[in-house]
């Protein structure tokens, strides 16, 4: 069945469950902390870009601001507006957050580790179609946004969610096709194998990352499509505050709003992780060293690359204005998609000629 059964059959079921629970707890804690501090980083950096301070009152450099925000969200009154369609109104934020947190469980952040004779991958589970499962989960996350807008029974929410679903469905195609080039080169859908293909160097010093092996066009197509998939500036039409109040989450308050908020940032981190794994060589980095350094370094490189992407996300948010909606659709269908298809054709031709 899945690779899981082959690789982890040696473990007894008890060990397997214990190891999995430990990994799930750690992954959740790390991811949620990362989400909280991405928000902090964004406020700080955008403040810097706009020549103001950003959060600075709570703790040194405002570092405890996420905690204060969390406490505020929990203690705020949870309003449910009248005339909403209640089952879906409640289900939508939960769906968003659950899907956003699930997809991270397949992202490999380092090599296999052996602790007291138990050999296990660093991500929660290693499956041989990991990339497809992540794409599937991301494609389902449209429903959280769409149902939130529809069930709120408000025109701003509805317009926001209509924009969001049209945009996410359109850009998903460019996003998926832009990854095909990498998949042709590595011949696998397993994220771990794709990363392993990118180890080592070309001509002595250039890393064998896919971005340096002819996939640079695909990388930029992926980058643009990922910005649109995660509803970030310059593609944040679904929550354009100048037109739509707050888009699909206008009618949400308290923790339900916080769930959408966390889901958005978790999706950003997932998109950044996929870009790192597929184009930037995952956990491979230049430095060698003693064994204890070798054990930590891969995770460090991975985190550094993901951080670079998050930084880029925020930088672009502070720099670019928002697209108009027809420009957004034309850009996705008439520019990104043909480029992605051309990239697939050229890549497959080259791979076929090399054989």
């Amino acid at each position: 069945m899945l690779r899981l059964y082959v690789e982890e059959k040696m473990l007894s079921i008890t060990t397997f469950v214990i190891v999995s629970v430990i990994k799930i707890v750690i992954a959740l804690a790390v991811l949620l902390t990362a989400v909280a501090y991405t928000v902090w980083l964004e406020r700080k950096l955008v403040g810097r870009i706009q020549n103001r301070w950003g959060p600075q009152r709570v703790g040194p450099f405002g570092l405890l601001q996420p905690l204060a925000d969390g406490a505020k969200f929990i203690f705020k009154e949870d309003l449910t507006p009248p005339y909403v369609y209640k089952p879906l109104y409640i289900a939508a934020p939960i769906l968003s957050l659950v899907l956003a947190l699930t997809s991270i469980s397949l992202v490999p952040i380092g090599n296999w580790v052996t602790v007291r004779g138990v050999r296990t991958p660093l991500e929660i589970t290693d499956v041989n179609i990991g990339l497809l499962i992540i794409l599937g989960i991301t494609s389902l996350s449209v429903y959280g946004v769409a149902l939130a807008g529809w069930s709120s029974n408000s025109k701003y929410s509805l317009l926001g969610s209509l924009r969001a679903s049209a945009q996410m469905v359109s850009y998903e195609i460019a996003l998926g096709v832009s990854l095909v080039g990498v998949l042709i080169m590595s011949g696998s859908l397993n994220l771990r194998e794709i990363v392993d293909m990118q180890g080592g160097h070309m001509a002595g010093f250039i890393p064998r990352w896919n971005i340096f092996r002819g996939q640079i066009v695909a990388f930029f197509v992926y980058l643009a499509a990922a910005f649109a998939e995660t509803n970030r500036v310059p593609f944040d039409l679904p929550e354009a505050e100048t037109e739509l109040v707050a888009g699909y989450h206008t009618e949400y308050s308290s923790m339900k709003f916080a769930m959408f908020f966390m889901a958005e940032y978790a999706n950003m981190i997932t998109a950044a992780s996929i870009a790192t794994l597929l184009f930037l060589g995952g956990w491979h980095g230049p430095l060698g060293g003693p064994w204890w350094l070798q054990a930590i370094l891969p995770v460090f490189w991975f985190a550094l690359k993901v951080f670079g992407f998050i930084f880029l996300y925020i930088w672009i948010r502070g720099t670019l204005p928002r697209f108009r909606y027809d420009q957004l659709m034309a850009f996705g269908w008439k520019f990104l998609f043909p480029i992605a298809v051309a990239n697939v054709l050229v890549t497959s031709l080259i791979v076929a000629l090399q054989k």
Partner: protein
Amino acid sequence: MLQLVLFFVFGTIAVAAAVNLLAQRHPINSALSLIVVMASLAALFLLMGAEFLAAIQVIVYAGAIMVLFVFVIMLLNAGAEERTPGSRVAMLLGFPAVVLLAGSLAWTLLARNPRPAPVALGGGFVGSPTAIAQLLFRDFLLPFEVTSVLILIAIMGAVVLASPPRTTAGAASPEPPAKRER
């Protein structure tokens, strides 16, 4: 053993969601039930070892096609449907027709393959991306391409139907200003 349990769990969910699809009166609830059916079918594919099919099932059907369904329901703001008492012909002929259809399907399948092998849970199914690609792009290339042309024709037909009708006389009669919808 675990796989058998999972099979019954997802099979039950699929059937229950399919019944719910018919029983619900609001179109969006029906659409969501259909998504549940798709997802549990994907889980059943996964149990048989066809992991690629399962992922494609989720990405294409649950993630793209059903999004368009939900999109249209949201756009038209479709309300709860009204129950009509149903025609007598449908009541009288419906169940015999279902029995006839199921019977002829089963008879045809059994006639072609008299001793069907039981479904092997947990593998054995030829469903790797490579195998599917070889079937699609080598063994059944012509039917595959013909189907895609058929879908293209359907899309063009939809565009023609949806585009506004052309005025026959041309510039002689300018179009009347569109009536304000209310």
